């Protein structure tokens, strides 16, 4: 089947099997390797993308489901101000996710800040548990996302809250 959708802001189409995983479609037809999942069962969280603005495991999304949908991958998200805020926040807090989980961590951080501009520790830890990677401690995750949220708040509202 031909699937047409919006990928990182552009209208695109591709030939795909109806049951093909979105993760496979993105890498094999569009050369986007940021969502490089390999567990194929929604467990590792490495292949997270935004579908209609919400983070999902792209290995669990069949190609037919993206017809008419909007997909953002780390490659597209990397062009946004939110991305810059998150990277600045991570750097400020000394939080450096590894090459296995970095893209997914950034997308989940954006979703956390979308859900709550001043996220509490439990929300950060719960949401980040979508990615199974032992490269980092919960305290580092919390510090990284909090710093990112402050930077974002300052950029958007001109000040960071108490």
């Amino acid at each position: 089947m031909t699937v047409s959708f919006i990928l990182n802001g552009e209208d695109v189409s591709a030939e795909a099997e109806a049951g093909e995983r979105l993760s496979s479609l993105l890498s094999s037809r569009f050369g986007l390797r940021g969502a490089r999942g390999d567990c194929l069962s929604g467990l590792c969280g490495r292949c997270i993308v935004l579908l209609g603005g919400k983070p999902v495991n792209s290995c669990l999304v069949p190609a037919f489901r993206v017809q008419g949908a909007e997909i953002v991958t780390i490659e597209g998200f990397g062009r946004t101000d939110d991305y810059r805020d998150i990277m600045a926040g991570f750097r400020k807090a000394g939080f450096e996710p590894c090459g296995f989980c970095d893209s997914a961590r950034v997308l989940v951080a954006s979703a956390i800040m979308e859900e709550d501009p001043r996220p509490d520790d439990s929300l950060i830890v719960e949401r980040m548990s979508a990615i199974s990677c032992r490269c980092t401690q919960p305290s580092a995750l919390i510090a990284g996302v909090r710093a990112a949220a402050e930077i974002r708040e300052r950029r958007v509202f001109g000040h960071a809250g108490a």
Partner: protein
Amino acid sequence: MPEHDVFVPSGVVEILAVMKQHPDSLLVAGATSIMASATGRSAALSPVVVSLERAQELKAISRTDRFVEFGAMTTLSELLSLRKGTVPSILKERAAGIGTFTVRNLATLGGALSCATRFRDVFAPLACLDALAEFRTPQGSSWVNVNRLAGENGRPVIRPGSLLTRIRIPADEWDFAISRRYGLDGYESERNAVLSCVCRMNKHTISEIRIAEAGAELVRSREAETMLIGRKLPLAERDKDAALEAYAGRCAALGLSGVRTARFLGVLRTLFECLDRGEE
């Protein structure tokens, strides 16, 4: 490349029309269990696929004094985002334990109730809340107590050719409500299950109690529940023993193994202790 006909109807009437025309079609909700059980880069789907995703009626959530009702396509994340008090806490707790939030953004309540391999974690709370499920076929519709989605052997009953449209949960108040998952294996394992219990009391006397355990099978015993009604808390040892015996009988009737039965009875004993202490 295998060819599929993919239908994306925008309403229930349209879905039923496709189902009538293609009785072997595969209904797809969040697709999580379908994709997770596949290996390789594609999932093998039926030649005709019906995606339920665009049917707005299946996403409606409503609440009255007597019940809260979910369209089958309500995602687990949507259910969890509802205000405190809208959804019974034992259901919320179990929904929150399914996968990660990125899985729950896709997985639906209807999909969780329709998995044929085993009962999902939300099933036991729904069973002890006596939730109702509405099924529609091209011929008509019916409301079914979710406890009837288990067959004679306690295993999930698949209703081929039926579309699950709504789930209705009574908004009754309970004095005690608890739901625990046990067993450490992966979520598909036969060796884990959820035990849920709701209880109403009148001056330390049980006036209503429902207990459901669901994993590979659903275990519920109306006989044991009836025996517990009218008993004072803390429960006397003989009352506990009598109830456990009734549950052992139910397990035997379902043909459960000795190990499975012993584990269930052990968890039940712990539940009775929690009930004695009023500890949720």
